[in-house]
């Protein structure tokens, strides 16, 4: 009898998990998890540049021009989805786009860039994910907008779409300048 109940018990656990999943998705838009960083200075960090391990970039090095910090990894399918959109934005020259390669391996990352193109001004390399904790990065893709003074203005979880650029990123950029 006990063994006949096992499938049922396993299913109850699964259903509970799915229920939590649906609840998490409802009410809040998954892409709009507020970041406590918004309105505050970007966290202090120093990270190497992908493929140039001796070149260290600090928060202060990026000040002076607004930039979009786009978190990606070669392991992340959704990053492929947004990639043409990010590329388009970078090409338009409206905004400097900084890549943030998250929990990735150099070879895999390079292969990915070779395959899909490299739209980034520069790519920070955070293989351990240590600095990502300070940014409050959950996963990839995530995207931050940082203004010329180094203040975080906006954050998005999930793939960027052309609508998001038109309706959120560009207005946020203009209103702060």
């Amino acid at each position, binding site marked *: 009898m006990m063994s006949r109940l096992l499938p049922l018990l396993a299913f109850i656990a699964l259903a509970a998990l799915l229920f939590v999943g649906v609840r998490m*998705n409802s009410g809040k838009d998954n892409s709009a998890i507020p970041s406590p960083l918004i309105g505050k200075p970007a966290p202090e960090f120093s990270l190497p540049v992908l493929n140039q391990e001796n070149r260290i970039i600090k928060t202060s090095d990026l000040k002076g021009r607004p930039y979009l910090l786009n978190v990606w990894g070669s392991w992340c399918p959704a990053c492929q989805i947004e990639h043409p959109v990010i590329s388009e934005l970078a090409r338009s020259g409206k905004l400097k786009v900084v890549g943030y390669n998250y929990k990735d391996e150099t070879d895999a990352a390079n292969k990915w860039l070779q395959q899909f193109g490299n739209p980034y001004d520069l790519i920070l390399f955070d293989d351990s994910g240590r600095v990502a904790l300070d940014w409050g990065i959950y*996963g990839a893709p995530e995207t931050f907008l940082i203004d010329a003074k180094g203040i975080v203005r906006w954050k998005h979880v999930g793939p960027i779409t052309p609508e998001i650029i038109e309706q959120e990123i560009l207005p946020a950029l203009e209103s702060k300048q």
Partner: protein
Amino acid sequence: MIPELGQISLILSLLIAFLLSCLPLWGAHRNNTVLMQTARPLAHAQLLFIVLAFVLLTYSFTVHDFSVAYVQRNSNTLLPFIYQISAVWGAHEGSLLLWIMILCIWTSAVAIFSRQLPDKVIARVLAVMGMIGVGFISFMLFTSDPFTRAFPVQSEGIDLNPLLQDPGLIFHPPLLYTGYVGFAVAFAFAIAALIDGKLDAQWIRWSRPWTNIAWAFLTLGIALGSFWAYYELGWGGWWFWDPVENSIFMPWLVGAALIHSQAVTEKRGSFKSWTLLLAIAAFSLSLLATFLVRSGVITSVHAFASDPARGIFILTFLVLVVGGSLVLFAFRAPGKEGGQAFKAYSRETLLLLNNLLLAAAALMILIGTLYPLFADALELGKISVGSPYFGFMFSLLMLPLVMLLPFGPITRWQSEQASKPIKLLLPWAILALGFGAISFFFWPGSTIKTIGGVIAAVWILCGTLVFVRSRFKSSGNGFTAEMIGMVSAHIGVGIFFFGVLMTESLSIEKDVAAKPGSSFSLRGYDFQFKGVEQIEGPNYMADQGTVVIRKGESIIATLYPEKRMYASGGNSMTEAAIDSGITRDLYVALGEPLDNEGSWALRLYVKPFIRFIWLGALLMAIGGFIISFDKRFKKRHANEANP
């Protein structure tokens, strides 16, 4: 007026489905023949009204009735006629209607092709299918009505998602749905048997052809989807272990296990409870797939519009159906396994291993697919489980499956001396290993996967032919449809793995910056880029590149890869150009313009043997269809059937 008629049809079909789920069941309980006999006409009436609704929705598309919100969102006046039809199932509401229509077709088909079944069985089976109908029709009416009017009425529609404007997408969803909704039949038979409490081999013989047909359709649907991804997405890949793909692959794996365990239960009486559980699991996973895709719980490349209210509705339905079935299973499944005893080495044992490996693969995929959600729920962070995990685990589980596959058919039921099949197969195993070793030196760039692919193909092909030969030699019994189907499907498995492993290990790709006139060499093929021209399609503008491919002096192919911008806006779409062949595909995708002098980024691939992947799937599907025509399934009693 037309949309309102559609809505009324839906409401009527809901009422009929409700009657179908109660009356025959009550009749079977009460032994009331009249009530039981309502099942068939009710099943047909349900189908009639759903088809009517479907036709009316299609009509609204063809006359561009943009007062219907669904039509307005998924069509426009420029859309070619054929895509006006396929747009009916191009988004959530319509694809749900297609889902339901296919369920009703299956229900009616069971009503028609089951003349030999006792009234009681058919009444219960159709009633269970009616219950599923009630769930889905009310889901559609309450959360996703395709006939809702839009105010104010727009004069032009948005567009069908350009990704879906492709011949492959006309057939992909119907085939897929026919497949996994078809598991509802095996499920309904299992539930009917549990309600009845009488679990003889009979009900399994009746449900076997249905399972095989459903599985064959599912195989075709998945293969077509994979083929479409290959030539439409421009990534050159054919499978991505994406959550939506995974969710449809799980019922396929469990369905494959079910096909085999049903055969054991029918012929030997063993594994009764296990077969019941698999029948429940196959359909439950189909429902889970519908849930995962429609609720947006898991983000995916397939990015369907999702809505939490819909998620809760399907989840509730899922809990009722699956929970209810498992409760029934817990209390009604046979206490002790009947059937004839079997020894440690016998066909039963081999089929049990097959089942465990396939079920483990499905479970592995379930865990990998839901783990990100689990981690998120426990606030372990957002995690994405990628193809390295799935690829590695899947290979690990499929390796013993491939090794054992040829043993199954030539091993006797009940008990067999292991030495006999080993003696039969040993020469072929050595041959396979020999070919593997040769191939390593034959193909430049070979890896362990290349060797594996060759060994798997030779091993399965020869091993299966050993069965064919021994069948010829012994007794001249001839071949039943069941055996022919099995041989076809097993050879398909060999060809499939061959295609996968060869493509994975031998494909090469090159990203190049191409000036007009420049040439690039890739594995002996010379790709010459001629330039890009603007062309105009019915509802898009495209940049069309011309690439001439030569081998030595002779021209092999001229390819025209495109990048399309649809009139309705949105992202540009890649149309890769492919010169296909049995031993290799040459694949060119157009990237981005690089300067003002006509230079473009191009991606070039040579993909050896990639067609074998879909050829293998096709053979598996054909096998499934052939099996369902076996004469034994037409007979009412076991003693009339072949041994």
